[in-house]
Structures are given as C-alpha cells and as structure tokens.
C-alpha cells in the first residue's frame, strides 16, 4: 500500500484527491468476533475507498501498541478501534491526541470517556436486566433463591455486567452463592474453571443452587455441564449468543436457558457511518458514547438469531 499522507489530523478532506486514511486495530483477532470484524472492516474500507491499515494484536499490547503508534506517526485521518478496551491502549490514545486524530471505537469500554470521538458498545445494564429477569421468570421470583455469579475481571464488559447482575440479584432478594462473584482467571480455561467451580460448590452444598449467572457463553457452557453432571435442577444464563450456546438452549436438555445477543453488525455500521460523516465534512458525533440494546435469546427465539461466531458467514 502506498504510504501517503503527512496531513495528520487534517480531518475531513473529502474533496482532495488523496484517499481517506484509516488505521484500524483490534487486539482480539484470535476470537471469532474479532476475526469477523477484521474481515468486515476490510470489505467496507474497500467499498468506501479508504486507505486502510489493519493492525492485529492477539492481546499482545507490547507488540500492537507500538505498531499503531508508529502508523499514527506516519499520518492518518481516523483511527478505528475494534474490541480493544480503552484501558489497554492509553498510549495509543495519547499518541492520537497528540496528532489530533479522532478514534472511533466498537466496544472499547463500558463508560463514556474522552478518549474516543465515538465508542459504541452494548448496554451492560440491559444485559444484566435481561438475564436476571429471565432467571427470575423461570424460577418464579428471586426471593430466597441461591444464585451463583461467575465473572471474569480482566474483561471490562463481563466485569461490569457481572457486578450489575450481582447487585440486581441481591436487590431482588436472592442469595449470592459463595457470598460474592466467583472469578474465572483465564479465558482460555474458562470452561473448565467454571465447571469445577459449579461442581465443587454443588458437592459442598448439595441442592444449593437455583441458578448460575455467567458473564459469557464459554464459561456458561462449563457451568451448565457442572450443573447437569451434579444432577442439580439449577438453570444457567450466559452472554454472547455463540452457536454452541444457542444450540444448547435450543436442545431443551441443557441447564443453559438463555444468552444475550449483542448486535455487532449494526454497532459496527453505526461507527463506520460516523467515520464516513467525519470523512465528508469533519463532523464528529455529538455523543461520544452509546450503549445499544441487546436481545435476550431463549428457546423461543433462538432459531432466528445469528450466532456471534457465525457473523458474516
């Protein structure tokens, strides 16, 4: 690709002959969603005529950040962040600010902040609400029910929705099994960790669970396996709408009863539209943060949901 453009930070220059230069990066390209996003952005950039630099970081910020920063140093019109939390890229944010290039982001943090011209993510409160309500519905109320909450702190989204869910469950009168949120340490072993957490808890407290609220599907599937292997009647909810979770929900035999679909294609579209608007005349979105609503996936609607790991295929 031609490395043109020393016009860093010039904003919209739709009139000039130079192509609009976009640096896109994601740390999560080894995840199915990340992989989908990379393909989608590459296709859209072609359609939009962008000069795209795509940087993929495998969660290795030591490697990714210098690359993004050096691309910034060579000049760009806009930066596009996919699924990389604001906390991990503060050096990129600084570099972008210094060069006066706006960052547009998909799912890059759970709260509004001034790092981004726009950050659109899913509504964590909504996810917590939907899942907790579903549990409540299936259990016929939460008062006195024992619910385990399994989270994963390094992921800000999971962390936030887990604590929102915990608060809501408590408010509705449920007991949090084990006293607080159970923490899975590594996403790689999330399924086995959740499986052991649930099995061990049920051994120590036979019949001690009415539901397990889990922050993401991979671990939720482990928790569901733990529940069924222990012969418990507890139900499980997850989040992500992975194909495996959807299949489990559809099967009707799994304790996993619900998950949540986050509308990534439309989120991505929103952000890309904002970039296009900026390209056209330099307008930036009026709100820098948007949390879009999600869809609860249960047996009733599971068939109509596109699984998150099958996006674009």
């Amino acid at each position: 690709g031609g490395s043109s453009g020393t016009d860093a930070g010039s904003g919209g220059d739709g009139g000039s002959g130079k192509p609009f230069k976009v640096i896109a990066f994601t740390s999560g390209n080894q995840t199915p969603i990340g992989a989908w996003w990379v393909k989608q952005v590459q296709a859209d950039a072609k359609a939009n005529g962008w000069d795209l630099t795509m940087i993929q970081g495998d969660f290795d910020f030591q490697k990714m950040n210098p690359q993004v920063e050096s691309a910034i140093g060579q000049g760009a019109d806009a930066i596009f962040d996919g699924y990389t939390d604001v906390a991990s890229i503060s050096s990129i944010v600084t570099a972008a600010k210094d060069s006066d290039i706006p960052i547009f982001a998909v799912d890059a943090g759970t709260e509004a902040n001034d790092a981004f011209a726009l950050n659109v993510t899913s509504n964590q409160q909504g996810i917590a609400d939907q899942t907790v309500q579903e549990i409540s519905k299936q259990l016929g109320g939460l008062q006195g029910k024992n619910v385990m909450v399994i989270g994963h702190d390094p992921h800000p989204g999971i962390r936030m929705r887990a604590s929102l869910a915990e608060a809501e469950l408590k408010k509705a009168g449920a007991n949090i099994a084990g006293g607080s949120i159970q923490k899975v340490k590594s996403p790689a072993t999330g399924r086995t960790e959740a499986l052991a957490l649930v099995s061990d808890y049920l051994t120590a407290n036979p019949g001690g669970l009415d539901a397990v609220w889990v922050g993401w599907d991979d671990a939720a599937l482990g928790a569901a396996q733990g529940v069924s292997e222990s012969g418990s009647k507890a139900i499980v909810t997850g989040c992500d709408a992975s194909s495996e979770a959807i299949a489990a929900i559809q099967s009707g035999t799994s304790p996993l009863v619900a998950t949540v679909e986050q509308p990534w294609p439309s989120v991505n579209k929103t952000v890309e539209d904002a970039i296009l608007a900026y390209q056209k005349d330099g307008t930036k979105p009026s709100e820098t943060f948007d949390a879009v609503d999600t869809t609860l996936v249960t047996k009733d609607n599971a068939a109509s949901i596109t699984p998150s790991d099958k996006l674009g295929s």
Partner: protein
Amino acid sequence: MTATPTRNPGIEDTSAGVLAVPRRSLGQRALSGGTVLALVALVLFFFAMRPDVFLTFTNVRNILYQVSILAIIAVAQTVVMVVGDFDLSVAATSSLSGSVAGALLTAGQSVTVAVLAAVAVGLAIGLVNGLLVAYLNLSAFVATLASMTSIVGAAYLVTQGTTLFNFPAGFTQLGQGRLLNIPMPVYLAVLIALVAWAVLRFTTIGRSWYAIGGNVEVARLSGISVRRSRLLAFTVAGLVAGIGGILLAARLGSSSAVQGSDNLMFSVAAVFLGMTVIRSGAANLGGTVIGVAIIGVMSNGLNILGVNSYVQQVVTGIIIIAAVTLSSLKTRSR
C-alpha cells in the same frame, strides 16, 4: 529372597557382609516422604474443615474426574522427564489433538476416524519433538518451546479460532460416560498410569529411559541406543498427550485451540512434586500421581471452602513450595 518384602530386594546382603554405606536414617525417610505428608496434611485439613463433604464419595469422584485429564498429561510429562528432558508442548499437543478430532467430527467423519486421526497427530508431534531433540541434538526446552508455539498456531488454524462442538454421543461418552457411577476418564487415567508405570518399571525401554536420565554418557557408552530411546520417549509423550486431548474434548463436548493450556504448568509441577518422593530424585509415576493428587485436592478443597480464586492462586504456589521444601530438607547440605 522370601524374607524381604521391602522394595529393595537384595538387601539381605547387608546382614551377610560388611556394609560400608549406612542406610538412610528414619528421620531422613520421614522427610523424604514430605510430599506424601503434604498430601495427607491437605486431606486432613480439608476434611477437618468440611467433614460432611470432603471425603464423601461424590466429592472424591469429583476430584478424580477433575484431575483425570491432568493426570494423563502428567504421565506424558513424566516419561519425558524420566529421560531427563522436558516437554513444554504436551498441553498444546493435547489441544491440537482435541481440535483435530473436533474438526473431523464437525466435518462429519466417524468417531473412529476422528479419534485415530487425533491420536496420530499426537504421535506425529511426539515424533517430531523426538527427532529434534534426539537426532538434531536441540535442547528439549527450546525444541518443545518452539514446537509448542507452532502447535498452538496449528490448533488455531484447525479450529479457525472458534470453539467446535456438537459432537456425536459416541464421542462425548468417552469423556462423560460412566461405569459403576465413575466417569470414563478416571478409568482411562488409571489405565494409562498403570501401563506407563509398568513400562517404566518392567521393560527394557523403561529402564533405558531411567539410565539415560541418570547419565546420558554412561548410558551411551554402555551400549544403550540413546537416540532411539529418547525419540521413543517423546513419541510416547506425544501419543499420551494426544489421548489426553481427545478425552478433554470428549469431556467438555467441545474443542478449542487453547483448551487445557494450564495442564502444562500443572503437569510439570506434579512431576516435580513427585520427584521429591523417591530417594533418587528421578521422575517417577507414583510420585507424579501424588503430585497430581496434591494439585487436585488443593483446588477442590479451596473451592469447597469458597476461597476467592485469586487468593487460591496465591495459596497454591505457597503450598507447592511448602511441600517441596519439606521434602528437600533431606538433601540440604552445606
């Protein structure tokens, strides 16, 4: 010979002749059993804390089920460590095997084909590791570190980064089925451990492995084919790790590229814990089993007590150090 039920046959010679070298004292013996003591202490502690739960059938089965696949990977690691090497790729190999099985099943292949192919993958990786180490003389550490990197990459390619699932029951039964109310992987782990134990103890190849692990040069000059034996050790490790990976995929009903990656560190820790159990300080199967048990009991017990998982991790490290320290006191010298 009949009079000596101890594990050191030939000891009757002691009474007959002058023995220049004194046997170990009772104190030393007890200390060298430090790792066993640590296991007993852990069991007693958790039992004391939750007598209603900890030693129940359900929970013991639970522990066994949880450690069964780790135990298999640890067997693979033990074989390689007996030869005095390391295999950092065992966990990656198991993930790749599981992924290959998963991918073939997803592609509609039969369970037999999938299992055989996955076993073959483990075997092939072990063979490559063995060739690198035994015939190209690479340090096992670098060779398996590098192959681990490649293997993980390959597993990502095989799974396309996703989690494969929806396997036929014929496959998942391998990991989730039960016999006499005990899950299959437990039987398989016991079987594999027993076979490995017998191979290590009673076969010429097993004894060659121990000789090579004791001193490569002496072994070579004694006419042991060092290269072939080391090649075989890595191959066996790859094969066993591959089997472990298949069982993990069957047990979880899914396969992914990073599945079971913590088995590497835990298997190494288990073998090391086990090495403190015997006099010679060599890797050995009995010891490894004890090491695996310590790791399993610890994690289950701490879960049962509801200890925060971060604190659990801190405690795990401390308990490993405590167990090994107990045993190592015997070898302290100025």
